[in-house]
């Protein structure tokens, strides 16, 4: 039993997409689909400028809207708090895709819905998700929120700002963003502290 979470330090991310490529190959995500993508935001006028890259993926919500809408129970939360899809029981009806406020799920043409799994298969071997392991800027931290010494707990404690995407949705994401440049204020949510 763990409460796995991820934190992404946006002051370090350079948007290189190593995470996105690693995810794609690790999880055999089909051409045209993605579990992890990167958004670029720019503001200001020359020479008073700011920008940030923000990797986005499944927010691994503590209150995931995608789970309750699943008619077969394929979309579920495992014992470690990871939101998963059981491909064998998924009928690819698309209800979860419609319910997800983050656009984090896709149809896999092999007949099921795909999404980020926090690389559950790696966790079993004591490894971190592929996106975390490879990041050349070390901007991603991962671990158990219930363990104060986990990488993610430490990173969140050390951060100046901790924010989540779309807090108004009440999803309580377990993917949080740290230290975004002030001009791109996401909305603060303190639940993870």
């Amino acid at each position, binding site marked *: 039993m763990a409460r796995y979470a991820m934190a992404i330090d946006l002051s*370090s991310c350079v*948007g290189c997409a190593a995470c996105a490529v690693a995810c794609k190959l690790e999880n055999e995500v089909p*051409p045209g*689909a993605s579990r992890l*993508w990167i*958004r670029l935001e720019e503001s200001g006028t*020359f020479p008073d*400028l700011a920008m940030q890259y923000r990797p986005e993926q499944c927010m691994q919500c503590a209150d995931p809207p995608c789970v309750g809408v699943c008619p077969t129970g394929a979309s579920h939360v495992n014992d470690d708090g990871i939101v998963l899809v059981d491909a064998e029981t998924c009928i690819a009806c698309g209800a979860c895709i419609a319910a997800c406020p983050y656009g984090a799920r896709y149809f896999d043409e092999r007949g099921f819905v795909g999404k980020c799994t926090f690389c559950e298969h790696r966790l079993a071997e004591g490894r971190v998700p592929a996106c975390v392991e490879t990041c*050349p800027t070390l901007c991603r931290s991962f671990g158990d929120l219930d363990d104060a010494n986990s990488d993610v707990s430490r990173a969140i404690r050390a951060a100046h700002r901790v924010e989540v995407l779309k807090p108004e949705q009440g999803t309580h994401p377990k993917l949080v963003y740290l230290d975004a440049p002030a001009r791109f204020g996401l909305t603060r949510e303190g639940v993870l502290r």
Partner: protein
Amino acid sequence: MKRRSFLKLSAASVGALMVTSEAQAIKLPNPLARVPKAWYDGDVSTVLTYCENCFWKCGVRASVADGRVWKVDGYEQNPKSRGRLCPRGQGAVAQTYDPDRLKRPLIRMEGTERGDGKYREATWDEALSVIASGMLGIKERYGSESMAFFAHGSGDTWFGDYLPAAWATPNVGKPSVSLCTGPRETAAQWTFGRGIGGHEPIDWENTDYIVLVGHHIGEDTHNTQLQDFSLARKRGAKLVVVDPRFSVAASKADRWLPIKPGTDTALLLAWLNVLITEELYDRAYVERYTVGIDKLTEHVQRYTPQWAAGVTDLDADVIRAVARELAAHAPRAVLPPGRHTVWYGNDTQRMRALYLVNALLGNYGVEGGFYFAQPPYIEKYPHAAFPLEPASGGCSGASGGETIDTGFRPAVDHGMFFAKTTAVQELIPAMITGEPYRIAGLIAYGVNLFHSIPDVARTKEALKKLDLYVAIDVLPMDHVMWADVILPEATYLERYDDLVEIAHKTPFIELRQPAVEPLWDTKPGWWIARELGMRLGLETFFDWPDIETYLDKRLSSIGSSLAKAKEVGTLVQRGRPYLADWEQRNVDPFGTPSGKIELYSQAFADAGFDPMPAYEPPEEGPAGSYRLLYGRSPVHTFAKTQNNWVLMEMHGENAVWIHTAEAAALGLASGDYVWLENQDGVRDGPIAVFATERLRRDCVYMVHGFGHRAPDMKVANGRGASDTALMSRYRRDPISGGAGLHVNFVKLVPGAPRPRLPRLSKLAERSV
């Protein structure tokens, strides 16, 4: 489908990186489909090797199941990757399974011209025999020196060093020198007495103040460097970025100095001025380790911050402030040299100016500055002595008018430059004019001739004049389909190569070993070089029957073996990073003529060059045109990776960046397609416009490497535009031989059609 529409929108504003718009293409689900077994649920074995998707050479763990490589990850014990990989490293596996790969040797059809692209398949024996007979004919007619070799990548040990030296030609060019690092290497050699080398020896972990001058960290994802940069910033190191463009690095900076293109030397000279006139430099260090401070003091008097402000379009107070901040943090303050330093044709002097600022901060060989990168110890294979020393090795070092009687004619650019390595672009005229003697044959290994060497029309003319043109490559690149004989190389995951020796704080040796067998009828570079050598009568130099024997022999010189190296992948040794380590041994680390850091270069003065860097204004372009600047995408390596579907999903075409106001004046908006036309009427495109506030109004910017015109590279072909195609001019750096490439100007010509191209996801489904 909100995300999809967002992605569509941003696809119009390309330039920056994104996951492509096709990401959420909906297909009807098939409830009857079986859920596939994941590769990692099978029997997975791990092979330790190093990556070839750029030149950085990161140690990787390749995961193999069912005879296929599924994934590569960084190798924790390797000092280059430290367990992490950049996007190119992660995505390299897609190249191995690219259906567009060259699959077997090809010979140009009789009766066709170079460039017609018509080929027939051949056996290796036939292809190699044709090449050997062509080379022997050239040797008989013109001498062995009339064969040239261009090489890039790890296999350049075979086609840049081993085979050319055994064959006896000094005409070996590497684009990585005179089209990239040449000026910084030559300047370092003649300032510090040692080059920079492949891995910039910056002591990132101890530095507190970093100034990047046109150095695009984050967009050029040199893995270790990006890790170090990120860690230094997390540690609280201050960052200043000098760049006409608001680069990714600039977006992380404490200060961004949006300098006027071509005026960097003025800024550096002003920093020298402040450090000297305000007596902020490290007096003890300068007295002990340098020569020429008196002359430099006098020289920089005129380069005041006020003067530089007028030249650079920067604020004099900011210029002064940065110099003072540098001094306040010295010696833990550093100006790392960028990699691609061929800009304006006076680049050795600009790099000298950058090094002199470092020297005055007293940071060379000191914690937080530059460390001394030592190569690891290992012996060469004890082959018979080559008739010529390998000509391409080493970027710098003396190559003035000195004549060593080897019995062979010197390289065609001999005596022209202060750099040891032949300037690759200077070999092209000899193919056309026959001066000083004819280059009649060329083997191009891993070098995209049309996407690296400026003046593509001249290159094509030269290729047409050759008696023999051979291309060795993995993909049917633009220039490959001009060759008389095409040899398909195996990808890095399928082959051995020579050991690489990395000069580093902790010097190390890396092994390349195959994870899987080569697909189709492709062969490793070592095999191709050896088989060719055997047909050229060079058996004495290839007395090793196979690569395993060769590698095992070399490794035995350090008490290791191939078997052991295969287990550990990387062999790390101890280095001597700091001045103290050298002084303990009483060894002078500076290999300059004076044995000290040369603020004043007598050798340059003797050769008629400025002994200290002086400012020279850049040439301006025609009215209504913009200076063409270019850079890197984090997911691509030059023009090598645009057929990789995974990487292309991340960044599938380049765009031309232009300031918002300039775009508006031209009636252009982001997402419009234009042609780019340069000062000589050369046109390329179509290319999408990216109107942005993120650069100055006097320049445009595009990512290098796109715009392939290679119909057999189905993914790359026709996506984006080529900056190289627009470089019909270059300005030669008379000291290093570097080809300054920031000297071209373009206009945006509206009305270009949006290219109609096959969907990436469709092309990706062809993977083998």
